[in-house]
């Protein structure tokens, strides 16, 4: 609830369900009248008690960290141990959980040069050299599939969401750099996912009836160099290929972006998912293509964020002033001054 995805899912679900209950370790970012909220940590057994006491019938488990500044250890705790707790809570004999939706990520496939061009749902493999996030996600999904086998009364959907580039993701920060260090000699394909489509996919999986594992990512791809050009940056092919750790150290030192190991692989080799199963089962495809996601990020870069506007008039005034400033800034490059004809 404390991140935009959870908050938006809750907001969209609220009108469709009789009772909505949210829990997170941090405060929710938006107050929702029809939702009860409690501070609870998925890493503790309390979550199971909650599920049983409230006689919850649908659990949407979004507390899976992928792109996070936390240490690998704490990501493991949240992803694997947290999911284990949630599953234990749901699998108690008295539990009434009939649907479970688990958020996963495209990072589960990792990225390697020798990968096929499209990863379908069954192409995860523990044998490949994997980064810690990939291993955690594989562990987590193994637990989930085991749960699904043991509890046949409960329908489990795993949504592998594509990489998102909203303002605060590492990938967006990387792509927004003025000079972007890239791996020398590689120009991978990137597949992205719009925040709205991620929310829509989860809402549809809650309201619909689609058990199984699904890849969720936008149509089409953009090349890394293309994405950088869209953002107005300039690629600098200086990172050594096949030395991801060196590249990560370099990026941390030079441009102060801490690119996680799995993301470094994606930037080197690219990762594209096959979403035909989603389309066949849901009858729906993400509305925004990868290119549109990138364009959206690029146009959003120029916007200023208006902090907490209290009265509505004040807000409108701020928006007006911002628009005016932007218009002036745009015209500033090529000033056309029309002299008044009469004094």
């Amino acid at each position, binding site marked *: 609830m404390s991140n935009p995805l959870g908050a938006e899912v809750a907001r969209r679900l609220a009108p469709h369900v009789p009772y909505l209950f949210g829990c997170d370790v941090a405060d929710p970012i938006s107050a929702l009248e029809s939702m009860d909220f409690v501070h609870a940590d998925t890493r503790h057994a309390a979550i199971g008690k909650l599920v049983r006491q409230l006689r919850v019938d649908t659990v949407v488990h979004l507390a899976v960290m992928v792109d996070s500044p936390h240490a690998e250890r704490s990501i493991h705790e949240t992803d694997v141990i947290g999911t284990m707790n949630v599953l234990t809570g749901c699998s108690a004999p008295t539990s009434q959980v009939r649907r479970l939706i688990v958020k996963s990520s495209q990072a589960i496939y990792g990225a390697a*040069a*020798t*990968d*096929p*061009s*499209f990863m*379908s749902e069954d192409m995860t493999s523990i044998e490949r050299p994997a980064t810690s996030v990939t291993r955690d996600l594989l562990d987590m999904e193994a637990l989930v599939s085991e749960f699904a086998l043991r509890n046949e009364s409960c329908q489990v959907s795993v949504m592998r969401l594509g990489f998102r580039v909203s303002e605060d993701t590492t990938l967006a920060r990387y792509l927004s750099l003025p000079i972007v260090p890239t*791996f*020398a*000699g*590689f*120009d991978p*394909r990137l597949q992205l996912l719009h925040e709205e489509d991620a929310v829509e996919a989860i809402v549809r999986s809650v309201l619909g009836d689609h058990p199984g594992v699904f890849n969720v990512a936008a149509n*089409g*791809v*953009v*090349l890394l160099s*293309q*994405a950088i*050009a*869209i953002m107005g940056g300039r690629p600098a092919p200086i990172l050594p*290929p096949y030395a991801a750790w060196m590249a990560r150290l370099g990026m941390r030192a030079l441009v102060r972006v801490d690119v996680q190991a799995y993301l470094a692989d994606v930037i080197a*080799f*690219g990762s*594209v998912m096959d979403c035909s199963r989603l389309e066949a089962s849901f009858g729906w495809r993400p509305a925004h293509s990868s*290119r549109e996601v990138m364009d959206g990020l690029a146009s959003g870069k120029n916007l200023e964020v208006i902090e907490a506007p209290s009265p509505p008039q004040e807000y409108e005034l701020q928006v007006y002033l911002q628009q005016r400033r932007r218009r002036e800034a745009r015209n500033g*490059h*090529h*000033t*056309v*001054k*029309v*002299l008044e*004809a*009469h004094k």
Partner: protein
Amino acid sequence: MIDVKSPRQRRKASKPAEIMQPDPGFQLSKQIRRLQRRAPLYALQGISELSVRLKQMTGHDVIDFNRVMEFVQFLYKQQALARRGANYAVDDFGFDPQWTESFIDAFMVLYRDYWRVETTGVEHVPATGRALLVSNHAGVLPWDGTMIKTAVFAEHSHPRHVRALVASLFMGMPMLSWFLRRTGQTVGHPDDTRRLLERDELVLVFPEGVRGTGKQFKDRYRLRRFGRGGFVATAIRSGAPIIPVSVVGSEEIYPMVADLAPVAKFFGLPYFPITPFWPLLGPFGMIPLPSKWRIQFHAPIHVENYPPEAADDQNLVMALADEVRDVVQQGIYDNLKLRRGVFL
């Protein structure tokens, strides 16, 4: 304040609007800039005059001005491509058709002037719809793939892009992986092949793989095993006809006399070739020899008439793979007979 002047008076008193240009910063003088702009034209004029003079003196074309113009066109195309910025689209495999077409000119020089490729049977390649081209593979570097691509694009009545399948090893190489993906190649994975065929593309596959390119000069024009027939199974499943292709001439571009297996193993390569010029002459050893090439496209083998379940029948698949192999081998013998000499 209310303006009391009439429109007529106002017009009379008005001055034209003054347009303020931003400061351009440091600039060379006007004359030098004009010279810079016109330099390519002056150079072309000079070359054309020189070619005319030389023709008058010697009696035959010393400088072919058409070729010069083609080169200039190529440069202008590259410049136009650089101006696209981010305004281009690639397909899901990372294929950029515009960019690829700009490079066809460069490969045309190799195709027409260097290897003097003679192509027959290009009419067997369908103008629309899916097909699987199956070719022999030779030469240390996969130049045969580029020449088949150029042949279909340049000689076919409906220029089409051939999408070749390459070993996943090459997709891990810097620069090469970028170039291969950008020009429409993809990994030789059954899934990729199926996907390309389902999009009604022309797919080129070399079932011999690195066993074909890595064979020594003494084994030239002897086909290796055609994989495990996976290409036939994929073609049956996707309902694509198989078009066998025989390439003659690619064996002689790098006459490989020995293979340094330990060095290859150290670099993680499938083979490390020793030719009369490589690694003796360093980078010059990588220049392919100007052998005479012939490419023949054979009549399609219609495996799409089989039901998709037939793909699981290993007997049938291997029989069809052998049939394709025989056609390719026979085509090689025929074309070797038609070729007057290795370099003629």
